[in-house]
């Protein structure tokens, strides 16, 4: 079982959210839209490579469109191991958070 870092967890979640439309650009946009984090493309690609290398994310080459200069998209799906890793991470997160709601809740 692989441990994943925070950025990796967020990326896995983004891919799950996007479903069949998950690829480099959309993942980046999803992260930006939901969290407001402006991550550099380089950071995302290296994290994705890491996730692929660990077998948590699977890549699949898709269609090549003229807008992409004839280059194929690389669609991303979360593997079973990836799902397990997300599950572990969020469980850990929940467990650690339990009982701290009063402390960390933002404003009234």
């Amino acid at each position, binding site marked *: 079982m*692989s441990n994943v870092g925070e950025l990796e967890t967020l990326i896995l979640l983004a891919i799950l959210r996007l479903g069949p439309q998950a690829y480099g*650009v959309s993942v980046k946009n999803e992260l930006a839209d939901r969290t407001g984090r402006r991550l*550099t*493309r380089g950071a995302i*690609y*290296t994290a994705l*490579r890491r996730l692929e290398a660990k077998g948590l994310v699977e890549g699949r080459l898709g269609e090549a469109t003229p*807008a*992409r*200069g004839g280059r194929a998209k690389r669609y991303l799906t979360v593997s079973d191991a990836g799902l397990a890793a997300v599950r572990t991470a969020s469980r850990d997160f929940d467990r650690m958070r339990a009982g701290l709601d009063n402390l960390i809740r933002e404003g009234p």
Partner: protein
Amino acid sequence: MKGTPSPPHLGEWLLRVVAGGGALVETIRGDLREDYVRWHESSGHFRADARHLAESVLIGVRLRVARSGWWRRTDRRRGTCGGGLRALSSTGGVEMGRGDLVQEWATELGRAVRTHGRHPGAAVLVLLTLGLGVGAVTSVAAILKGVLLTPFPYADAEELVLIQEERDGDPISVSYPNYLDWQDRTRAVEDMAAYQFASFTVQAGERALRARGYRVTASLFDVLQADAAVGRTISTVEDTPGGPAVAVVSHSLWQTSLGGSPDVVGRSLLLDGVPHDVIGVMPENFEFWSGGEVWVPLGPLVQGSELESRGTHAGVYVVGRLAPGVEPTEATAELTAIAEELEAVYPDANRGVRLRLTTYSEAVLGDAQRYLTMLLAAVLLLLVVACLNVAGVVQARNAERIREISVRLALGSGRRRLVRQFLAESLVLSLGGGALGLGLAWLVPALVRAFGFGGIPRLEHVRVDPLIAVVALGISVLVGLAVALMPAFSIGGDRLDGVIGDSGRSTMGRGALRTQNGLLAVQVAVAVTLTIGAALVARSVQGMLSEDLGFETEGVLAFRVDLPQARYGWSERPPFYDALLERIEALPGVVSAGVVEPLPLSGRDRSQSVYVEGRPYTGREDLEPVDYAPASAGYFTAMGIPLLAGRLFESTDEGQPSVAIVSESTAERFWPGENPLGKTLVGGGPESGNPPLTVVGVVGDVRHYGVRGDVPNQMYFHYRQLPLGGTVVVDVEGVDPVDALPGVRAAVRELDSAAPIYDAGPLVDLFDRTVADERTVAWALGFFSTFALLLALLGVYGVTARAATSRTRELAVRSALGARPPALVARLIRGPMPAVLVGLAGGVLGAALTSRVLESLLYGVAPTDPTTFATVAGAVIAAAAVSAAVPAARVLALAPSEVLREE
């Protein structure tokens, strides 16, 4: 139709170059392109392009870094799983094979930089040592390449030869009629040209300037196979008596003074006040001898001049081109036969005249070749010392690390891995040193152009070009390999297993110690050889400079005034000089002034044969050769030439029978044991019809040709009785001679505003120039040898310091047991002495064997001068003892009890 905007190719290209290829990178390029379209819509073409470029580079760098494996370490630190690199490279489709090696080396070099960073002092010392070593070699190599290896700008330059006549083994210039006969008779020399050195006053607009040049036969340009860049060269029609006045000018004169436009051809140029038609401009890279600005035909000047007389050697030189396939030796044989024929036909004029043939490059480069080769040998020796020194330092460092190395070997680290580590560590240093050295060499072309380099010609060709840079780099890499491999191999020589069990003290193995002493001995030997050579040349220079020339060189200003023949006939010259000398003597600071021609040390001379009246006379062989010069009385005063008997010239001599002053040794040779005053001489012999000259004074001998030259017979005429062009000498007191120049210029201008001053400068500069070669070699050798000696002493210091450190415990025990500290220090100092003495012996032997190459530079010192050898040897021993004493004395400061407690 307006298509989708496409991102700049540069960005896509950069991404692929930086990140490498592969399917992943292709996908990313696609993603970027998609974004680019959006950026284009929202913020416009320019911003989209900029952003695309920036993002491409950033992503590329990130991916490259990730691929290089740095993130592996980062990940481990973060506690996540590493080792994904290999998996990644297969999934990502990234090629690794070749990258592995590059990667490993990059890591190794990075590690080496960090290792050195931990001992910055040692690293900087090594960098400087190698930098100076490589810099010295590169500098000399650059000069050598520029001067010796830059091809002459002539086709087949190796076929060009200089042909001179010689009498009694001394080269003399060529008799013009002889030259014409050679041309008719020779087969070995395809074509010949004659030329005279000349200088002209060029009127360029309002300004008059002095330009050096040549009077040449038309064939010169054919012989050199050089053509004009603009217009044409001199034709045979122009090179005949009565030919038109034409001139070819140099590229630089054309550019700087004649406007640089092609319509210069056909324009009229005033040379010495005579209009000449400019017919051509030579190419920028054209060079002939020591340069020149103007070429005029020789032919029109021959008729009615001394050039027509076969017995006169009137400053004519001959350059020829060998026929294809003819060797210089064959040509010499043929020309010697021709000279013998001519001697048989013209016995009076050509008695004993032989020919000397030199290749053109040899004639131009002369001694430069020898000096530069010698300096190259010296700097290579220096580089050897630098390498040995660095090897010593690295080896000592490795000896200190022997525990670390042993542990790593024991843990299974391969020998190859260790060698690679050493190699990386020394390559980092040697490449750094090489870069530093190249930086130093970069300054050399500007320096030699500004300050000259002895009498070495063609310095304008010296430059640090890619080849020189490659040489520097190559040397650095070789040095790196050499330095690395020495300790790398000595690892195997030492037994390592015992070391680990040791109490943690670093000790040197016997093999390492032997290597270290060997390195030290060789360094000392080379340093001593170089130092002895430098000392010999330095002593020669000192000897030459302190030599009495028979006249003062300090505080004397010399200059020449160009009096155009057109306006100043022989009878108009003396009044001009009289008026000028009077004005100059009235200037502040001027003690006296006089006129003479030729000036000693100027390289010019005049000689003739005289008949000493009263001697038996059967023929010309009874005549005596004598150097002569017209002079004024003020010349002797200004130059400090002592009057030994009789009187100097007086103004009342004018219009009277001719008088002469002779030098002391001349008087002794001509009239031994007699009073020379009142004796008479006839210039050119009794049948010449010249009136006899009466000796009225005897002055001291003058070394006209410098300290190395002979002192010939010398005779002075009164410049009013034999008026020729003149050099004015001014004895100045209290101010620098150069400071007197403005006043002098003003004085000349008052008399004739169109007469330019030239060859102006302190006399001492001329003197310095005669020792320029020796001085340059002395400086260069002095610098190299000082550096080598410092390195060797540093080696002694290091060896002692390390011995002191590694023997601290032993010394403490001895001290605790009652040994007196001075005795302990003495033990330490004695440590490196065997190596120093062996090196010293080797160095003395080396100097004895090699100092012969310096012989031509030495003056008043034998190549094996015992005083020099002994002084250098003594100094080296003393310096070595001091170098060893400094670190040894530090042991005294340690309290034995503390040392032992620490253990």
